[in-house]
């Protein structure tokens, strides 16, 4: 009964999304700006929830509670600082500036803006290339997650490849039809749904446990007494700050988030979303992650290291089957709301920043709109093939849960390396084309080297042995060091070189709109 119900809920959800997509398609003008940015018409609620649903994905239901279950509830603080505060400040400093420039100059992608500023197709192509490089495995991750979730849900009746293919085909149809407008509308529905579900789950568990919070805390005292104290175990200040800073910077450079900076209707919308952001983050993360750490106190057994998620197990224990099914459907919906946005923005980077400047500069608006839709198909199908291959052989023993965290962490850190040079480009007229290229290439190359090359010990005269290619030093993650290095390289090379012909150092000076 539970399986049929869960499948019913997921199919029902897909049908609702498709209906929304069709309505959006009818409203759509056939231009790239409308397909990618809904013609810059988003109001407060839609912008807030589309960023929210895109950003938070399945991590809120699976990865986050799993971390709180195995490491302790301090994860709430990490995510609160990261998404509630640092991202909000960047929303203002990067997002508002980009929005003003987009309004004045009509930019659709970040690469386009940088091309104009530095008169450099190479920077544009490089930013798009780097972004697609990190985005691709992240889309794969969502497909692998969806495939595994559906396989698990149907107890193997629908195999992994079937589930992943089903979700991908659906997303292609949906994204190619609906574009940004449809995606944002379903995101809004999903965001509200997720919020409602997580609070219902929170209340339900609290009421269903005999003795409520007292029993839970007594259980924690017995099973995981270290959960009460702030810090300890995995949580060091360095660990917490590395995650919070690096991921917050990475988020602003994720194409599907960055592009949304351009889509606000007015300055008022940006102001409102900025002030509501910390509240929304609290409302979602506190109950979701508390449930994760409470599961440890309630003696819930979930093998998180082997890819099992704790929240579904907790809900199956304390809430009715239909309710647990609804929440899991919500999680799958969340996964999809992240992937559809990634597909759309990935396709826009491809057509706008690679195809148009390098292949066919004279492409018409209508043709670019078509190309964008074709790009969605190509991107999604390649990611699906790669996912099936990875799941079939290559990755083997590694499980969905650990994959989610591994690749996810790397992608965020990779995007974070773009944030420094972009921030400088937006605010400092002294930055040059050569400075940007070096400031992007050097940290990207080193980030890959430090994450993928084996640790090597090197003897240095005078000093003792130095370890190369470790992923952290003195407890701080390598991504933070490289962000600092990227800033330094951009500035230094900028000071040593002169502006390229055609660069516009004054382009970034903007005035208020309304």
């Amino acid at each position, binding site marked *: 009964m539970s399986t049929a119900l869960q499948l019913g809920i997921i199919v029902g959800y897909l049908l609702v999304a498709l209906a929304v997509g069709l309505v959006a398609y009818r409203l759509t003008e056939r231009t790239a700006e409308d397909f990618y940015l809904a013609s810059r018409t988003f109001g407060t609620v839609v912008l807030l929830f589309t960023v929210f649903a895109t950003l938070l994905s399945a991590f809120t239901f699976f990865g986050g509670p799993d971390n709180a279950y195995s490491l302790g509830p301090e994860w709430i603080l*990490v995510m609160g600082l990261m998404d509630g505060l640092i991202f909000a400040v960047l929303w203002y400093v990067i997002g508002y500036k980009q929005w*003003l420039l987009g309004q004045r100059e009509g930019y659709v992608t970040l690469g386009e803006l940088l091309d104009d500023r530095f008169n450099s197709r190479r920077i544009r192509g490089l930013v798009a290339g780097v972004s697609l490089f990190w985005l691709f495995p992240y889309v794969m991750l969502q497909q692998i997650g969806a495939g595994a979730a559906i396989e698990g849900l149907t107890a193997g009746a629908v195999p992994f490849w079937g589930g992943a293919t089903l979700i991908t085909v659906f997303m292609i149809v949906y994204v190619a039809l609906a574009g940004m407008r449809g995606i944002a509308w379903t995101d809004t529905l999903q965001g509200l749904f997720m919020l409602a579900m997580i609070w219902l789950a929170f209340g339900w568990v609290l009421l269903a446990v005999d003795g409520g919070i007292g029993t839970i805390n007594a259980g924690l005292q017995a099973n995981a007494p270290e959960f009460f104290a702030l810090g300890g175990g995995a949580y060091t200040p360095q660990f917490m700050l590395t995650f919070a800073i690096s991921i917050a910077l990475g988020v602003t450079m994720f194409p599907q988030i960055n592009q949304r900076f351009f889509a606000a209707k007015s300055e008022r919308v940006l102001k409102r979303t900025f*002030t509501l952001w*910390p509240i929304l983050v609290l409302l979602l993360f506190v109950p979701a992650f508390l449930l994760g750490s409470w599961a440890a106190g309630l003696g819930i057994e979930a093998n998180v290291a082997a890819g099992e998620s704790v929240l579904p197990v907790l809900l199956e224990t304390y809430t009715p089957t239909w309710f647990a099914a609804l929440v899991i459907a919500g999680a799958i919906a969340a996964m999809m709301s992240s992937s559809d946005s990634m597909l759309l923005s990935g396709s826009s980077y491809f057509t706008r920043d690679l195809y148009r400047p390098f292949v066919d500069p004279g492409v018409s608006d209508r043709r670019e709109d078509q190309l964008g839709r074709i790009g969605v198909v190509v991107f999604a199908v390649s990611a699906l093939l790669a996912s099936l291959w990875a799941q079939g052989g290559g990755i083997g023993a590694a499980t969905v849960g650990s994959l989610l965290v591994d690749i996810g962490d790397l992608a965020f850190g990779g995007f974070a390396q773009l944030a420094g040079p972009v921030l400088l480009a937006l605010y400092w007229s002294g930055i040059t084309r050569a400075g940007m290229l070096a400031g992007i290439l050097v940290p990207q190359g080193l980030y890959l080297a430090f994450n993928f090359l084996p640790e090597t010990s090197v003897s240095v005269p005078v000093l003792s042995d130095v370890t190369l290619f470790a992923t952290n030093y003195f407890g701080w993650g390598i991504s933070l060091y490289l962000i600092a290095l990227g800033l330094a390289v951009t500035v230094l090379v900028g000071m040593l070189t002169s502006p390229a012909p055609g660069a516009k150092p004054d382009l970034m*000076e903007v*005035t208020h709109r309304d």
Partner: protein
Amino acid sequence: MDARSIGWAGVFATLLALAIPWFLWGSEQLFAGLPVWLWWHIAWLGLAAIVFRVFVARAWGLWVTDERADEAGTPGR
């Protein structure tokens, strides 16, 4: 850098610095069943939302837009 700019920079820096209550490091004290450090974080983000509102009302545009042009009343292009 004028006083207004430095003041707001200080406010934002404080908001970021104390979102995690470092001064409660190692504290196990509970209030209403939840750790006191979690209550601090919840209250702090609530405070941040209020501070953001004040910033929006009084200083929106600071650092981002060209203030001289704004003050001279130059209309946006």
